[in-house]
């Protein structure tokens, strides 16, 4: 017997609103449809009515987790239009904050996934490490979220105590390598809940245009930090983990390995970071022009198109977040899976509805 189950927009598993209607034959999912927009804020509309400085603060609020990358990508698009040279030290600081943000995002996701698996001990352990990352971000920026690090032509703050960041990152990497990654990759509970569940084939991954860890877990070997290096990523050594299985387990493994790589990147950046200015001067507008800027955020490619008419208010700001392209693929992921696995499959996307609805 076929039946349709509406889930959402209020969820037991997610703090943000969205709706999935699941069509089932018995306990098996045969189809699904999605509805978003419950948290629509009209950020692109607002961005065309605020000056550049206000836009940086506005766009940092596109997402509550990867807030920094939005402000940074917006600044990078304007810097490209205005041919503004960002000083090397500022580029290193941007990389360090972006990678700390990736650690924060991936650990938050790992904690949520552990809780959805019913693995409370693992959830507590992951969140203990996440708290350490947030302490580091607070020590750099003064804030636990919305770090306000970016400005046109550079950054607002220096990293005054690199030793503290180095020590914190070493601690996180060691605990991940010795405890969390082995649990996530070998524990029977995790394997039973995640292996072979929510598969997204490579072909479907390409058709949906998914990005970030979701794409890399489905054998799409893409990462803008390596494929189109920006800031100082070209000077840093790191691996891009991929998996072929395309299931929830593969997404766990990719993110776990990426945490270790981010730690390596931060350590190298702290080592290489030169002395020098933090920004290119007091710049509040750029000349007429348009540009695209793309970066590899924690959830994948962040795309900004910015057009300027030469005034201090952008003529157009297009924001395409990673969740915007990743979430539709859940329709392919849940098909032929057990209804009980739908929450975990959704969570394995690391979806952000705040980003999606903007």
């Amino acid at each position, binding site marked *: 017997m076929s039946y349709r189950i509406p889930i959402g927009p209020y969820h037991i598993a997610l703090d943000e609103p969205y709706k999935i209607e699941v069509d089932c034959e018995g306990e098996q999912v045969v189809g699904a449809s999605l509805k*978003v927009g419950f948290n629509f804020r009209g950020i692109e509309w607002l961005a065309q009515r605020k000056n550049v400085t206000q836009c940086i603060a506005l766009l940092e609020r596109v997402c509550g987790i990867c807030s920094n990358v939005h402000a940074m990508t917006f600044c990078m698009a304007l810097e490209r239009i205005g041919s503004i040279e960002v000083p090397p030290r500022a580029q290193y600081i941007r990389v360090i904050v972006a990678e700390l943000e990736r650690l924060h995002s991936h650990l938050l996701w790992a904690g949520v996934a552990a809780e959805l698996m019913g693995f409370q001990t693992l959830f507590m352990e992951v969140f203990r490490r996440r708290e350490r990352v947030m302490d580091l971000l607070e020590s750099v920026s003064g804030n636990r979220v919305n770090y306000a690090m970016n400005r046109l032509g550079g950054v607002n703050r220096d990293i005054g105590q690199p030793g503290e960041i180095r020590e914190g990152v070493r601690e996180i990497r060691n605990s991940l390598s010795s405890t969390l990654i082995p649990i996530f990759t070998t524990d029977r509970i995790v394997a039973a809940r995640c292996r072979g569940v929510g598969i997204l084939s490579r072909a479907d991954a390409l058709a949906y245009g998914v990005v970030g860890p979701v794409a890399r877990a489905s054998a799409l070997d893409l990462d803008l930090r390596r494929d189109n290096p920006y800031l100082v990523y070209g000077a840093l050594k790191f691996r891009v983990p991929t998996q072929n299985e395309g299931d929830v387990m593969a997404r766990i493994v990719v993110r776990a390995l990426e945490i270790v790589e981010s730690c390596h990147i931060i350590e190298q950046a702290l080592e290489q970071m030169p002395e020098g200015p933090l920004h290119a001067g007091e710049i509040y507008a750029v000349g007429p022009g348009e540009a*695209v800027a793309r970066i590899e955020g924690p959830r994948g490619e962040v795309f900004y198109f910015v057009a300027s008419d030469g005034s201090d208010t952008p003529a157009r700001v297009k924001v395409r977040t990673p969740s915007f392209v990743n979430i*539709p693929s859940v329709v392919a992921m849940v098909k032929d899976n057990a209804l009980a696995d739908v929450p975990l499959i959704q969570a394995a996307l690391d979806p952000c509805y705040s980003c999606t609805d*903007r």
Partner: protein
Amino acid sequence: MSAEMLRWRIGGNWAQRADGWWLTVPLGRIRAAARLMREGGARFVALVPREIRAGKLHLSWHWDFRGTLLSVETELAPGVSAPSIVDIYAGADWAEREARDYFAVSFAERAATPPLMLRDGDTPGILLDAEGERP
């Protein structure tokens, strides 16, 4: 295949910019370009509509090929439908529905373009100049 080979297959006069490669084409060539992108293994990234003058829109479709941004742009006169590529890239569905919400773009080749961010019954086109300060 390389990005250069893909550009050659699509044809036209590609222009290199700091952010990638751009090609201006007539409206009728968008779907053919999308098909060649798909065959070549390019990933669909975004559809960016914007208003250039009273009701006239500029549309750009963006793809990624191994880190290189390939952008195909065209202009859309008022009252003309844009070509849909949702049958070529499933991931273009939300992009097209959002273009409808923000700029009232209608798409041919798809049965319906339901709202994405707006609710059923809301008037589309909230970013059009003619809409003034309507949020």
